[in-house]
């Protein structure tokens, strides 16, 4: 079962933002997988705060993080239990791994948009959440 996403013209350079439907299309305290050429992204809907997108592969053994248990704004990898923050992409101590984060915004029409270009690992914790539709 797949849904073909629309490439959308907002915001930014008009090629990389993809429309992932409305918030209600995402499972509460769960995630959906965005498949792109060469990999996949996990788009989460935590109970508190905005949705968040991270690479759907745990750096430990490649576990699909979208299938993990979501608690607060963190997810536990379903394969071996590593915990990642959805906001800064970092593993909980004492692990020092991190996963790539992708910018997410909710448009004025309520569409959840995810940008395919990952954030720099050095970007601060809230950098993935873009409040306005302009960059």
């Amino acid at each position, binding site marked *: *079962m*797949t*849904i*073909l*996403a629309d*490439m959308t013209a907002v915001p930014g350079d008009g*090629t*990389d933002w*993809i429309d*992932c*439907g409305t918030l209600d299309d995402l*499972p*509460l*305290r*769960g*995630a*959906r*997988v*965005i*498949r*792109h*050429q*060469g*990999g*996949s*992204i996990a*788009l989460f809907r935590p*109970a508190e705060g905005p949705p968040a997108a991270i*690479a759907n*592969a745990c*750096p*430990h*053994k*490649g*576990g*699909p993080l*979208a*299938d*993990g*248990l*979501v*608690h*607060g704004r963190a997810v536990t990898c*379903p*394969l*071996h*239990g590593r*915990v990642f923050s959805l906001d800064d992409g970092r593993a909980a101590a*004492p692990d*020092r*791994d*991190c996963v*790539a*984060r992708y910018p997410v915004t909710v448009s004025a029409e309520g569409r959840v948009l995810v940008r*395919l*270009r*990952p954030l*720099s*690992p*050095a970007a601060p914790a809230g950098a993935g959440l873009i409040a306005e539709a302009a960059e």
Partner: protein
Amino acid sequence: MNTPRDRILVIGAGMAGTRLVQELVALAPGACDITLIGAEPHAPYDRIMLSPVLAGEKTAEAIRLLDDDFLDRHGVTFLAGDAATGIDRVARRVTTAAGRQLDYDRLVLATGSQPIRLPLPGAALKGVVTFRDLGDVDTMLALGRPGAPAVVIGGGLLGLEAAAGLAGRGMKVTVVHLAGHVMERQLDAEAGGMLADALAARGITTVTAANSRAILDDGTGRVAGLELADGRVLPAELLVMAVGIRPETGLARAAGLEVGRGILVDDRLGTSDPAIAALGECVEFDGQCFGLVAPLYDQAKVLARALAGRPGDGFAVRPTATRLKVSGVDVFSAGSLGGADAEEITLRDAARGSYRKLVIRNDRLDGVVMYGDVADGPWFFETMRKAEPLGALRDRLIFGPAFAAGPSATGADAATAAVAALADDTEICGCNGVCKGTITAAIAGQGLTSLDEVRAHTKASASCGSCSGQVKALLGLCLGGSAPAEAEDADPAICSCTDLGHDAVRARLGDLPAMTAIQAMAVLGWKTPEGCSKCRPALNYYLLCAHPAAGVDDPASRFVNERVHANIQKDGTFSVVPRMWGGLTSATELRAIADIVDRYDIPTVKVTGGQRIDLLGVRKQDLPAVWRDLNAAGMVSGHAYAKGLRTVKTCVGSEWCRFGTQDSTGLGVKLERITWGAWMPHKFKMAVSGCPRNCAEATIKDFGVICVDSGYELVVGGNGGIHLRGTDPLTKVSTEAEVIEICLAFIQFYREDARYLERTAPWIERIGLDRVKAVVVTDTAARQALGARFLASQTHARVDPWASLAAAPGAEFATIDVPARRAAE
């Protein structure tokens, strides 16, 4: 005290310059006035870890080498983002790009190297980058996008790490390499071929024996692809040149120092100017330049001693081992690759993707190439460096230290003696690949004192726990007499989200009305609003068990397997096991399964140990359709993923077997029909054997029945698994009705009394068999009450979860697919 301190100026804050500063302050704290200057705007970082940063697996901060605290503590001045531009050797003064004038008594050049840029047409296009520093990583991240093609020129160590990093970001990477196989300086053709296969599995294509001709322009000044000499064109939005490095000698040359390929140094790292030393990738020693980190660290040690005026050996080139830093692809290589006068011993396990080759010259180990299982690499390397005659060891050498080493001495404690005898590189935890040395270093370095702390910091024994004994022995060994006795708390806290133990939580929940796990956390004063993956499934179960009819079950509080009613596999696909009552199936079911395997392209079909059929490798988005088709053929979920009733294994019994005493198959089917769908603290397996020959292996099940002429022997608390435990005899009864009554009471007692994730074996050992017997055998009223509660609960549980999910699959089963990039873009 009052003598002026030597002013030492280190130019270059890379791996070599940074390590020198660390060595120097460790050797002679406060003795020198140290200034470290680096052209990059960042604090010193571990360049070896650039690939994980590129892949998004590590942060830039996580690879930092020196923190501010270190610099403050040792009074080291660090100037970032400023490059030295000139050296006045007479005045002993360095000028910088920012206009600084830095005087020195001793100058150290650690200027490193420059990546080689091939002079190909188009080399100046936007999108053509090298892979050398964090700035390059940021450039690649800004220009790369998932799904877009990238080309890496160079299939050496650096090129493959760049390729892995880009593939980790979802790019489609092609590695173009001049030689016949990748990493040809470190690997023989066979290991190189295995490596290329492993890279292919990660979406990295390798093109070997390929010569680049030109970099193509997309018409706007950006790279569009790479044209090879044979005319092939590889599309690329990003092109990485990783063909090698060249020592950075510009500053030294301009200052008139003697320079060959690199800055010429002697074995004390001195240059032709006695006040100037050099180390790292910028130097040339004895005709050699250096690109790996081990000799750089050796140089830092030698130079620190020289600067501090301490005696010691000079620098000498030692053999170096190479490891590829790409997670999941393990390559180890050291020494010679072989040759005409060498003997070679190889061990190849194609199924496990493992290969090792030893090169032996004059009865000494002269080289080792390993692919796949590389845990023994450091031991081989040490054997090679010792260069002792192998003698009789030669026959067993290839099998590694476990077989090559002789029997160990025995001490007072056999477990401690055994673990003490192991080499540091011996793997202790097979689940997480943690070696002895890693564990002992963590215990010593981080001051760990308990098994839980070791688990948190090293992951050793954090998965299956079968190595807990060895890890405990290591703790004892490291801590000596100070090893704390493992406190066996009566009811330890569930996890760090609460101070309450399982039993306490259960007792408190019993007084509360029906609610969800997250609501219960608020009521019970949890420290985290939504708990964690340990406590939330436990609370969800306790509430479900206490209020079976209230609908408190929350799928988001369950592990993925119970949420999507299938077993997650290592690659993220799932396995599907339909129920086969008592192990019985039919032509109709088998035909339907065969059709489903074809229809959904299911790669593996396997018979399980529980007498059912496992369909492995089903994509998550196909699960609802697979269930729908299994339902259509009359099959329901086998709950092979559940903390709950799994299987009832049977033999054919008196229906067919010449030794059978009762209808074991029929009884097994009856038990399964009554108990299926029940959620429990952990998985629960049953078996019914038709005679004491016990073909259904009932004596290693949670509840087992062994039929005899005079009735049924009931046994409980067995399991296979990590700690094999045979069952305890519970009682003997004479009718099937009594078997069923005791079985239901036993299950309900386990459901209501055991802690979440506690199987019947440890549960019975904790509470004692006598208590179980008293409740489910001796006390008739208690037994009947338990049975009644179980049956009441089962009226809500005997529902096929596949049918409801197939009818209305949740959003998580649907992927969002991004179409391929439009050609015009």
